[in-house]
């Protein structure tokens, strides 16, 4: 399955969930605090991270808090 994660093309195992993706991308951010995920510009609530499986061709943004502004 090919998806775009934060603008980068990635080959991921089928049926991977958002929760699993985040665990892989940002190990230290496990509890999801300060992290948000969007699939094709739709925010995925924390409560749906486990249940939501990625699908081929999707565009995913995984954002985390940083200093700013």
């Amino acid at each position, binding site marked *: 399955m090919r998806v775009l994660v*934060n*603008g980068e093309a990635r080959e991921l195992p089928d049926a991977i969930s958002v929760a699993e993706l985040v665990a892989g*991308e*940002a*190990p*230290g*951010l496990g509890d999801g*605090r*300060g*992290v*948000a*995920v*969007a699939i094709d*510009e739709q*925010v*995925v*609530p*924390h409560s749906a991270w486990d249940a939501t499986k990625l699908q081929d061709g999707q565009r995913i*943004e*995984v*954002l*985390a*808090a*940083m*200093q*700013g*502004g």
Partner: protein
Amino acid sequence: MGDLELGGRSWGSRLIMGTGGFRSLRSMEEAIAASGAEIVTVALRRVEVAASGSVIGSLRGAERFLLPNTAGCYTAHDAVLTARMAREAFATDWVKLEVIGDDRTLFPDPTELLDAAETLVGEGFVVLPYTNDDPILARRLEELGCAAVMPLGAPIGSGMGIRNPYNLRIIVEQASVPVICDAGVGTASDAAIAMELGCDGVLLASAVARARDPVKMAAAMRAAIEAGRLAFEAGRIPRKLHAEASTPVEGTPEWSS
């Protein structure tokens, strides 16, 4: 000195601190502590770039309110998406709305800003928009339902102070939501001036983060905002071209000259 009423809550500090530009997390933590700020802004960035959890960790410990911003967005579309992400990430409806028009001035784009504000207010956000010091734009933002207006004093990071105090005064006069001076403060007196003009608060980052001694400058800003607010409430003396003696003339001894 009364509290700041903002977004339906009362805040003891009228200083909102940005968290960008510090040389280290430790410097940021100490400076924010010295500033007394209760609200601090944070950004969202892709995880590769964002420091792993540390900002959240640093800031959360101290019971501060994290106010996400939409820094870096050039369109209403991007700002709205970023705000929605922030709502999920920080579990808050509050957002400091930035929609910039230009990477040299970092001034807001008026049309995109209004569009984004309208959408976000409609989605239930408490919208705190960073805006130019344009009284008409400020009024439009208030009409749309923003919880405050946050006019700039000068370009972000420029340290130029309040370039146009007249506009700020007009905005304050006409606003019925809080006015927060956002951007431009370079040193303590700039923050005091903003408060003396009647602003309800000041948002700043670079002036502290990039000072030679950020912690000391944070303490300076805390004192300056208190000073400016007190002076505003105390009612200053009028300005005059000529002098007015503070020591009475009557009873002056007459020495033989």
